[in-house]
């Protein structure tokens, strides 16, 4: 039984011309004890999916089950089993870090002594011991996110939803948070996280579901997706346009794949299956063939590349994320 099982999920916000189709026949399956990233631009339906799974929003169509429990039929059972940490640090800023965790523990139904012990445990785990007795409004952005995540873990959830956990964080805080999330995963939690960054999905997830306009348009491991997108690419700009054919042959031989040629900018593009090793081979081949290089570089696929390949359009905001009309 998958930990998260979503079939044919649909959700429309608003009505008439104003309506936004946030989820359109979305399917998703996350095996227990694995990490799946929902990757997509703003408005693709990531947050809406998480909100349905966390019982905050009722879908119009389809079913969503968490550990076998239907989110609309048994919301209370689902709430006992999951932890949610959203895009906005949902903590009480007037309470201290410790008080926040104690409160969440009590609300999850832990006895007071257990809530106390668990709060101390999490403060240590999340490196917040020194700030434990300060009101949370004095915390930095990274600290607030860590406290928010700790709040989601108070009751040992078996399934964890993280909605853009590192959006808006500086690189150092992001790396720290990644470390904490990896620790949780090692402890055996099933994690569904949403992100706009391929890099983040890559760093944390076993499997990635690319989502656009409310449905999953591709899924697989990071390697599989990158292979689809073409993985890392080598871009070469040569000096002499008459040498394009020679360059193409050298490049095809060195990279062992098809080569795209743009004649006007004298640019050739090929997949770099072995990353920098391929780059070295290409440079050697071009040098042997006597082709002068103006520019050469290795480019990692970005979310834009994934989207361009999968949808033919860039990863722009595809729809407003407005849920104001939800009722």
């Amino acid at each position, binding site marked *: 039984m998958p930990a998260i099982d979503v079939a044919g999920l649909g959700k429309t916000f608003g009505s008439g011309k104003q309506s936004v189709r946030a989820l359109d026949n979305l399917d998703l399956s996350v095996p227990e004890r694995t990490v799946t990233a929902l990757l997509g631009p703003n408005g693709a339906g990531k947050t809406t999916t998480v909100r349905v799974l966390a019982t905050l929003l009722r879908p119009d169509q389809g079913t969503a089950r968490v550990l076998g429990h239907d989110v609309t039929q048994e919301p209370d059972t689902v709430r006992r089993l999951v932890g949610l940490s959203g895009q906005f640090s949902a903590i009480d800023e*007037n309470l201290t870090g410790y008080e926040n965790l104690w409160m969440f523990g*009590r609300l999850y139904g832990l006895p007071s002594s257990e809530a106390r012990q668990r709060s101390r445990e999490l403060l240590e785990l999340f490196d917040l011991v020194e700030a434990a007795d300060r009101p949370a409004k004095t915390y930095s952005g990274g600290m607030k996110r860590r406290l928010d995540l700790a709040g989601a873990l108070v009751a*040992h959830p078996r399934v964890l939803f993280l909605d853009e956990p590192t959006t808006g964080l500086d690189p150092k805080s992001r790396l720290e948070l990644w470390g904490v999330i990896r620790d949780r995963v090692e402890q055996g939690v099933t994690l569904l996280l949403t992100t706009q960054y391929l890099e983040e999905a890559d760093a944390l997830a076993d499997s990635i579901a690319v989502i656009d306009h409310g449905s999953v348009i591709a899924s697989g491991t990071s390697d599989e997706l990158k292979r689809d997108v073409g993985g890392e690419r080598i871009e070469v700009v040569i000096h002499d346009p008459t040498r394009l054919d020679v360059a193409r042959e050298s490049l095809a031989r060195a990279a062992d794949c098809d080569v795209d040629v743009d004649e006007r900018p004298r640019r050739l593009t090929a997949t770099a299956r072995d990353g920098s090793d391929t780059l070295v081979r290409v440079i050697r081949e071009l040098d042997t063939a006597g082709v002068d290089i103006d520019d050469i570089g290795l480019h990692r696929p970005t979310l834009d590349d994934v989207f361009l390949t999968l949808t033919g359009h860039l990863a722009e905001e595809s729809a407003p994320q407005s849920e104001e009309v939800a009722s």
Partner: protein
Amino acid sequence: MSDTVTEAAAPSLPRSNPVTDSLVLVWRNLKRLPRQPDMVVYGTIQPIMFVVLFAYVFGGSISVGGTNDASTYREFLMGGIFAQTMAFSVASSSVGLADDMNKGLIDRFRSLPITRGSVITGRVVGDLAFNAFVLLVMVACGFAVGWRIRSNLWEAGLAFLILLGFTFAMLWIGALIGLSVRSVEVASSAGLIWLFPLSFISSCFVDPAYMPDWMQPIAEWNPISAVALAVRDLCGNPVGNVGDGFPAEHPVLLSILYIVAITALFSWLAVRKYQRTTAH
């Protein structure tokens, strides 16, 4: 980041308990008061200002029950000020809940296995405690301007129970407003704007006998008037020309009916709104 703590398998959580849930959330709402001293200060300054303004600025020229005596007016005034101040408590729950919603806290609470009404109950009861404190300040203020309890302790006790009951009812209206608007600023003005006409077209500050004929019934049946009159009645204070209709003869009963009706209607609406609301 240390990882010295290994976790046990997820324990089965006990069933949620509505009383514990609400008490934890009341605790949360009270805990923040000493950390927001400015809120406490401004929450008490406004009613004190009303007392001073009406007792000494307007008081001398307002006639009550046929007399222009300023000390009679001041004793008449306090029952009205108590009722008006408690009505204005709407703003505390509307602003508080709108703030929680904007910060995503309502979403988080909704994702927890807690009883449906406990988040709003926690807010309303926490605010009730705060407003009881405001009422205490008002009583001290009343004593300073010459207001006295001229009945007995039991009747005065009932008067204050009615005031607190009225606050409780009004806080549920505030809860509905707070969950229905999109920002703290709107929650603050939407929580108060309709209360100004409501508290002035009442017997809070003036004797309705001097209002135009068409306005008098509105003022007499106004819930704030009912509470003001009940308090004056029960404390043995001057009541003005109240006439002889049902509101004049049964202010205590009418107040209790209003309290029950408002609480029932708005707690139902607010909890319904809470379940359907989404923050972002």
